[in-house]
C-alpha cells in the first residue's frame, strides 16, 4: 500500500461511515440480483470484508438440494447457519467442497466475498423481500462501494 493511499484512509473511512448511515434512510438503488442469490453478512462487514454472495443457481446446476441441505445440514434460511472461516477451513459448510479438491479453496477470498459492503443478509428476489419488507434488499448506496473494505482492514 502506497503512502499516498495511507494518508487518505481516515477520509475514506469517514465517507464510508457517512454513506452507511445514509443508507438506512436513503432510496433503494436499482438491484437486479439473480433470483435466489443469497447475501451472507453475519460477520463480514464487521470484519472488514465484503459480504458473501452465494449464487444459489450456480450450485443447483451442479448439485441437488439434498447434497447441501441434507448431507451438510445447511438450513433453508439466509443467515440461519452460523458459518465462519474456522468452520469452513475445518471442512464444515462451504468447506466440505471448497477445499481445493472438489471446488477452489479458501484462499480465493474475493470469489465469495464479492458483495457490495453494507448489503444485508437475505435471499434476493424472495417474496418476503418484495412484499413483506420492501427496501431491505438494497445494499449501501453506490458511493459506499468506492471505499474498499480492504482499506478499513489495514487500519
Amino acid at each position: 500500500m502506497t503512502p499516498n493511499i495511507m494518508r487518505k484512509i481516515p477520509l475514506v473511512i469517514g465517507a464510508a461511515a457517512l454513506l452507511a448511515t445514509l443508507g438506512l434512510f436513503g432510496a433503494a438503488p436499482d438491484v437486479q440480483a439473480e433470483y435466489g442469490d443469497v447475501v451472507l453478512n453475519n460477520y463480514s462487514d464487521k470484519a472488514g470484508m465484503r459480504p458473501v454472495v452465494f449464487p444459489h443457481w450456480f450450485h443447483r446446476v451442479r448439485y441437488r438440494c439434498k447434497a447441501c441441505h441434507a448431507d451438510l445440514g445447511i438450513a433453508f434460511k439466509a443467515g440461519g447457519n452460523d458459518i465462519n472461516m474456522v468452520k469452513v477451513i475445518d471442512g464444515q459448510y462451504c468447506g466440505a467442497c471448497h477445499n481445493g479438491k472438489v471446488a477452489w479453496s479458501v484462499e480465493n477470498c474475493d470469489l465469495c466475498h464479492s458483495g457490495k459492503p453494507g448489503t444485508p443478509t437475505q435471499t434476493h428476489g424472495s417474496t418476503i423481500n418484495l412484499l413483506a419488507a420492501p427496501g431491505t434488499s438494497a445494499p449501501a448506496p453506490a458511493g459506499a462501494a468506492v471505499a474498499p473494505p480492504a482499506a478499513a482492514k489495514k487500519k
Partner: protein
Amino acid sequence: MGRNILLFSLALVISCGVQAQDALRGKAVYDVQCAPCHATGLLGSPRTGDAAAWAKRTAAGINAVYANAIKGKGSMPARGGDARLTDAQIIAAINYMLKASPGVASDKGEPANAKGVAVAATDSGKGRTVYQSACAACHATGAAGAPKLGDGAAWAPRVGAGAAALQASALKGKGAMPPKGGNMALPDADVRAAVGFMLAQVGPGAAAPAAAPATPAVAAPAQTTADAGKGRTVYQSACAACHSTGVAGAPKLGDGAAWTPRINAGMAALQTNALKGKGAMPPKGGNASLADADVRAAVAYIVAQTRGVAATPAVAAAGTPPVMTAPTAPAPNTPPVLAVAPPPQVQAANDPNAFNRLLAPPSKRNAAPANDGIHDASSPGTMLLQAPLASFTTLARSTTGNYVDWVAAIGKKQIQPRWDARDAKAEPTVMDLTIVREVKGTMPDVVFPHKQHTEWLDCSNCHPAIFVPQKGANQISMAAIMLGQKCGVCHGKVAFPVSECRLCHSRAKPAQAAREGKR
C-alpha cells in the same frame, strides 16, 4: 432393396434424434419470443399452423426465412426483438413453427444449416446491433470512464494500441470494463463486431460504410455530440420498418397530414402509445428490449421530422420528456430540447414504470454479477464469476424466478446435478406419490407431486420439521407461504415463486369442473 430400406430407416432414426432435441429447444424459444405474434398472426406474421402463409415464405428457400428472422424484415424485428438469442436458437424456433404447420416442413424444411445462415446473417449491421444492446449503456454516455462513441480524443490512444489489443480488452475486460461488456452470453465474434463498429465511428474514413451501411445517413460528426442522433438511430432500428413505408396504417415519417392530429393529442399520449402499443402498433415497435428513454427519443425524432425541425440532435432523457410547447404552432427556429442522458440508475428511478418491481424487462433479467446491484464491481473476484446467462442459454426457460424451468431442465437431462457431493453415481430415490389438498376458497385444489420434489430433495429436508408426514396434520396458508414458511421455505426464494398460482392450484374442484363442462 432390403438394404436400401435398412439404410433409409437408419438415416431416419438419426435425423429424428437430432430433430427431437432441436424441437425441444425450438419450442422453448418460440414460447418466449415468437408466440406473442406468431401464435395469433399479429401484424401480418405467418401464424403457426397456417401452412399456406408459411409456404409463401419458404418458397424463396428456407435459408431466406432464417436470414429474415435473424436480420428482421417488415414488422418482424431482428431476432424476434431479443438480440441475445443466437442464430441456432432462432433457427430452432423457425423449424418448430414449420413443423407445427403440416405440409410446409417436409419439402423445404431441410437441415437447419446454422453455419450457412450465420454467414448470411453476419451482415454489416451486426456490430451496431451488438453495440446497442451491450455496449451503449456505458459507451454512449461515457459512464465509468468509458470512451464515448465517436469521441476521437478518448479513442485515439486506445486505437494506437491496435485493434487486436482493443478486442482482447473488450473480450476479457479491463479496468471498469467488464468482460464482453458484462454480457457473457455474447459470442466472441459479436464482441469483435461491436469493437469494429465503435472504431468505425471514430476514425475519419475508417470502415464506417462497411460497418453500418444499413444507416448511412448517420454521419460520424453527429455521433460526436453527446448522444446526438439517438432518436434517429432508434427510429431506424425499431420504427422505420413500418413508419418509413406506412405499413399497417402507420403514419409515415414526415407526413404532416397524418401526424398533426396525433401530435395535437400531446407528446405524452404519443409516447404512451409508442411505449404501450396501440392498434397495429406493438409496444416499443415490437422490440421490448428497448429502454423507455430510447423510445421517447425516437418519438421526439419523428415529431421533429414532421414539424420541419432539422434533425439536429434532439435527445430525450427518461423522465424528462421533450417539452413541446404549443404543438400545433410551427416552430422551426425553436432549438431542440437538449438534455444530457443521465446514468442508467437515474433513468430507472425516474421511469414512471419503475414501481413495477415484479416485472423485470428482458434487459434487466439475469444480470451479470458486475451489473446486478449486489456484487461489488470493484472487487477483483466479481469479474471472474460466471454470469447466469452464460449458464442458462441451453436450459428450458420459464417466465419467472431465474427464468429457467428447473424441473424441465432436470427432466430433460439438460442438467445432471449430483445427488451426493462425493459419489457422482449416486441416484435419488424418486417417490411417485401425488397428494391433493382441497382448498377452502374458490381456487382450484392443490396438487402436490412428490415426484418432482424427490428428484431434488431428501425426505428429511421437509419431513418432519416443515411438514408432518400425516394427512390433515399440516395447516398451510398463502400468508404463511409468503412469509417464508411451509412451501415458502423454497417457493418464493429459490423454487418458482408464488406468482405462479396455477402450477400448484391445478385441479379444478368437482363443482367447477362440472360447470365448465356445461358451457
